[in-house]
């Protein structure tokens, strides 16, 4: 399968994905890789019902997404894979998910607005996120921190998050 984009986005499939990233990546399929969402019936139905003839949208458990990643059936697809959190992305990476570049779009914490350290208007990271991001960088994975393709990517180190 051809992975067009791997993204961390706690809003999952929403306007930025369908209207901005999918056309930009010429994606044919979006996979939300999350065990929690897979098990939440209403959330799963709501997400999958946003499918269109041009863009299939599916919610899969992390193991299932891993299987799809190496499946020949997916060879003709251009896929956007969405993880809800950095923690889940790391889980998938540790299970063998191949990641060379990851787009960080939406990360929020706590009940209040603006919990955690602000990296962009829609990315707030706590200590655990920061450790994961540093770990990913050490693995040679490129971080592309921006909400939509037309945004300028933010350099995490320059925001002071890496100190």
């Amino acid at each position: 399968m051809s992975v067009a984009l791997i993204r961390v986005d706690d809003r999952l499939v929403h306007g930025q994905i369908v209207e901005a990233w999918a056309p930009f990546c010429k994606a044919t399929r979006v996979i939300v890789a999350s065990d929690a969402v897979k098990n939440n019936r209403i959330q799963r139905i709501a997400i999958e019902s946003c499918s269109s003839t041009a863009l299939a949208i599916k919610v899969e458990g992390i193991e299932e997404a891993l299987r799809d990643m190496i499946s020949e059936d997916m060879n003709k697809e251009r896929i956007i894979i969405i993880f809800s959190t950095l923690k889940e992305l790391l889980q998938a990476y540790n299970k063998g998910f191949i990641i060379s570049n990851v787009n960080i779009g939406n990360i929020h914490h706590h009940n209040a607005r603006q919990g955690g350290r602000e990296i962009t208007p829609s990315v707030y990271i706590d200590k655990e996120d920061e450790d994961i991001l540093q770990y990913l960088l050490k693995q040679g994975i490129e971080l592309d921190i921006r909400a939509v393709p037309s945004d300028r990517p933010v350099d995490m180190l320059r925001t002071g998050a890496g100190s």
Partner: protein
Amino acid sequence: MIGAIIITHGKLAEVLIATAEGIAGRLENVRCISIDPCDSAKCISDAISNNIKTMNKEDGVIILTDMFGGTPSNIGLSFLEPGKVEILTGVNLPMLLKFTGHRTDKTLPELAMLLKEHGQKSIVLASEMLKGKV
């Protein structure tokens, strides 16, 4: 009187209500939630739940969101309680004005269906409508 919560990206909800009030007069029991990039899902969900708790919901509440598949709609969907809380996506000004005219004389399911149809019918392509007439 059926209540409404309008949930949109940015300030669309606020402005939509202010605009509808300019045309139809003050809207009672109508709340708005504007969603910004910095809002967590939990924060949005709490705002909806607090609004539902504190408003008059004797005749039911309709949640109007800006776009099916967008965050306001995705989070709003979990509040669906058929007959008590309905969710309608793609809110527009004609829909909101129709709401003000029929919120006291219809049941919640009737009003929700009426608004859906009216919102769709209010979208007109002028060249198509006028074809052969001008």
